[in-house]
C-alpha cells in the first residue's frame, strides 16, 4: 500500500477513474432513493426528462451550469496553487454588491452592453476583495486559508443581511432586496443560440453570461497552462519547497491566486442578479459556491472537465426540481446528498479504486508483453 501509485494512461486517469467514482456516487444516491421507498430508475428518468425534455428545460439546465462553471473555475484556480478556497460562497455573495451597484447606478440611462462590462468589473472586484484578505492572511500571517475562508463565508452572510436590510433596500419596502432594475440592468437571453437547434427557450433565464462563463473557462486554461504566472502557481501547488528554491515568491502567488479565484466566484453573481431576478435578493447564491467544490473535483481542476461537470450539476438542479415535482417524497435536498457523495467519492476517496485499476492495467501490460515475446521467438 505504501508504494506510490503507478502512472496510468491519460484516458484512464482523466476519463475512467472519474467516471467510476461518479458511478459509485450515483449508486449510493440510488440506495438513498430506495431507502425512501421510491424507484431509483423512475427518479433517473424524471431527472433526464426534467433536464432535457424541452427547450425550456435545457435553458434552465444551462442557466444553472453557467453559475457552476464560474464557481468551479474559482475553486480550480486556487487548487492549482495548492490552496483550498472554501469561501466561494461568500465571495460570490459579496461579488453581488458589484453587480448591484453597477446596475443601480446606470440601469435607467444606459443600455445593457454598457452596464454589463461595468458589472463584470464590479463583481470581480468585490469577489477578489473578499478573497484578498484570507489570501493575504495566509501569505503574511500564516493563518490557515480553509478556516479563514469558512469564517469569511459567515461574515459575508451577516454583512449582506445588514446591507440588504439597511442600505440597499429601497425606502418604504419591507423585502430585503434592491429595487428591480430597468432595461439596462437586464441581460439579453440566448434564445437565438437554442433556436439554432430548433429549441424554444421559453421562460428559462438562459442568458449571455453563459458565453462569459465559457470565455472565463478558456481564460483560465490560458492562465494556468500558457502563462508564466500559471506555471508559477502550478509549481507552488505541486511543491512549495521547489517553488521557493526556484525563486517564486510564495506570498505573492498566494494572494494573486486567491484574488483570481475570488474574482471568478464573484462573477457568478452576474447570472442570477442580471440574468434572472433583475434585483439582488437575500441568499441569491444558494450554495453555488459549495457546488463549485464538487465541480472542480470532478473536473480535475481542468476547464475541459469543469464545463461538463458544471453541466452535470445543472442537470441535477433542473432535473432535481422535476423529480421533486413528480415524486413528492424526494425533495430538492436529494441534490445536496448527491453533491456530498460526489465530493466524497471524486475528492476524498479518489484513490479508492486506483490500486485495483492499476493492478488490472499492470496485468494487461504483462500479457501483451508476453505475447510480443512469444511472437519474437
Amino acid at each position, binding site marked *: 500500500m505504501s508504494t506510490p501509485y503507478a502512472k496510468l494512461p491519460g484516458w484512464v486517469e482523466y476519463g475512467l477513474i472519474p467516471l467510476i467514482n461518479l458511478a459509485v456516487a450515483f449508486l449510493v444516491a440510488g440506495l438513498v432513493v430506495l431507502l425512501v421507498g421510491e424507484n431509483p430508475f423512475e427518479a433517473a428518468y424524471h431527472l433526464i426528462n426534467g433536464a432535457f425534455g424541452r427547450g425550456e428545460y435545457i435553458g434552465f439546465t444551462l442557466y444553472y451550469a453557467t453559475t457552476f462553471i464560474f464557481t468551479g473555475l474559482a475553486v480550480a484556480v486556487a487548487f492549482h496553487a495548492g490552496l483550498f478556497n472554501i469561501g466561494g460562497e461568500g465571495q460570490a455573495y459579496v461579488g453581488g454588491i458589484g453587480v448591484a451597484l453597477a446596475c443601480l447606478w446606470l440601469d435607467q440611462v444606459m443600455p445593457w452592453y454598457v452596464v454589463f462590462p461595468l458589472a463584470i468589473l464590479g463583481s470581480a472586484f468585490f469577489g477578489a476583495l473578499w478573497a484578498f484578505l484570507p489570501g493575504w492572511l495566509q501569505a503574511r500571517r500564516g493563518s490557515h486559508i480553509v478556516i479563514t475562508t469558512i469564517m469569511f463565508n459567515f461574515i459575508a452572510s451577516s454583512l449582506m443581511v445588514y446591507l440588504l436590510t439597511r442600505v440597499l433596500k429601497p425606502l418604504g419596502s419591507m423585502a430585503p432586496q434592491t429595487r428591480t432594475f430597468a432595461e439596462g440592468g437586464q441581460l439579453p437571453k440566448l434564445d437565438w443560440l437554442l433556436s439554432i437547434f430548433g429549441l424554444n427557450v421559453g421562460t428559462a433565464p438562459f442568458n449571455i453570461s453563459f458565453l462569459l462563463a465559457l470565455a472565463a473557462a478558456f481564460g483560465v486554461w490560458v492562465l494556468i497552462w500558457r502563462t508564466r504566472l500559471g506555471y508559477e502557481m502550478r509549481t507552488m501547488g505541486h511543491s512549495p519547497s521547489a517553488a521557493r528554491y526556484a525563486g517564486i515568491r510564495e506570498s505573492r502567488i498566494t494572494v494573486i491566486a486567491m484574488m483570481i479565484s475570488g474574482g471568478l466566484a464573484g462573477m457568478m453573481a452576474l447570472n442570477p442578479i442580471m440574468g434572472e431576478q433583475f434585483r439582488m435578493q437575500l441568499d441569491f447564491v444558494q450554495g453555488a459556491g*459549495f457546488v463549485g467544490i464538487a465541480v472542480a473535483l470532478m473536473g480535475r481542476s481542468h476547464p475541459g472537465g469543469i464545463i461538463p461537470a458544471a453541466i452535470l450539476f445543472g442537470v441535477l438542479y433542473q432535473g432535481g426540481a422535476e423529480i421533486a415535482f413528480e415524486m413528492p417524497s424526494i425533495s430538492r435536498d436529494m441534490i445536496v446528498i448527491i453533491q456530498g457523495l460526489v465530493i466524497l467519492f471524486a475528492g476524498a476517496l479518489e484513490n479508492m479504486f486506483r490500486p485495483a485499476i492499476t493492478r488490472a492495467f499492470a496485468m494487461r501490460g504483462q500479457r501483451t508483453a508476453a505475447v510480443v515475446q512469444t511472437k519474437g521467438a
Partner: protein
Amino acid sequence: MDFFHVLVVLLESTIRVSVPLVFAALAGLFTERAGVFDIGLEGKMLGAAFAAGAVAAVTQSVWMGLLAAILISILLSLVHGYASITQRGNQIVSGVAINFIVAGSTVILGEAWFRQGGRTPALAEGARFQTINLPGADTIRDVPVLGPIYADLLSGHFLLTYLAFAMVPASWWILYRTRFGLRLRAVGENPGAVDTAGISVIWLRYRAVICCGILCGFAGAYLSLAMTAGFVKGMTAGKGYIALAALIFAKWRPKNVMFACLLFGFLDALAIRLQGTPLPLIGQVPVQLMQALPYILTVILLAGFIGKAIPPKAGGVPYVKER
C-alpha cells in the same frame, strides 16, 4: 438588583447555548490533536440530532435516542476516518462531503419517514431530557445574590449540560494524564516517532476519530432531545463551524475550549438580548455584527493579533509509513 437579574438570565442562556459548542469543540479537540482535521463537526452533530430525534420519537425512550445519536455520529466519524486515514484522502474535502451528505439526507429521510416538513414528531416527556433541580435550590432561592446564582444559574439544567462541563476536565485528564492521551498528542505532532516506538498510528488515529464521534453524538442529542423537543431541519445552523472557531480560538487546549465556547455562547445570548435596544455610548449595534463577531474574533486571532494559534504539527497530513 434589576441589572443583576438581567445578568443572571443572560448567563443562564449563555450556558444553555454553549453546551453543544463545548461538546463539539472537545470532539474536534480529540481528532485534531491526533492530526486529523475535521470540518465535518457540523454534519456529525446534525446527523446525531436527527438520529436522536427520530429514534426517541419511535421508541419513546430518551436513552435509545441518545444511543442512536452516538452510533450515527461514530459511523460518520469512521467514514471520515476511512477517507482520511486509510485512503489518505484530503481531510478537508472529506469533511465538506460529510456535511453535505448529512444536510441532504436528514431532510430527505425525515420527510419520507415522518412527513412533517423535515421535522421529527414532537417528543413527549419520557422521550426527552428533563431539567434537574439541584438539592436545596428552592429553599435558598430567596437568599440575595447567592440564591439566584445557585437556583437559576447553576441549578435547573439538563443532565447533558452538567456532562458537557464535566467533560472539560475529563478531556484534559485523558489528553494530558493518560498514556493514551500522550500518544494521541504525539501522533498529531510527529507520527513518525510514534510509529518508531512500535505503536500503530492508524489505530490510534481511528480511536481519536471515534472519541470525536461520541462527543458529537452528545452535542447532537442535546440539540434535539434537550434544547428542543424533536429534530428540526438544519437545526445545527452553523454551530459546528462556531465550535471549530472556538477550538482554534482556544489554541487546541481543553480549558480554553470551555472559555471560548462560553464567550461565543455569551455573544449569541447577548445578540438575542440586545436586539433593538441601543447601548450607551455606542448606540444601536446591528444584530448582524454581533452574529459575525465570533468569526471576526477567530480571524483576528488566526492572524496572530491576539497571541498565536499554532495547530498540531502533523494536522491534515495523512501518514505514510514508508516508501
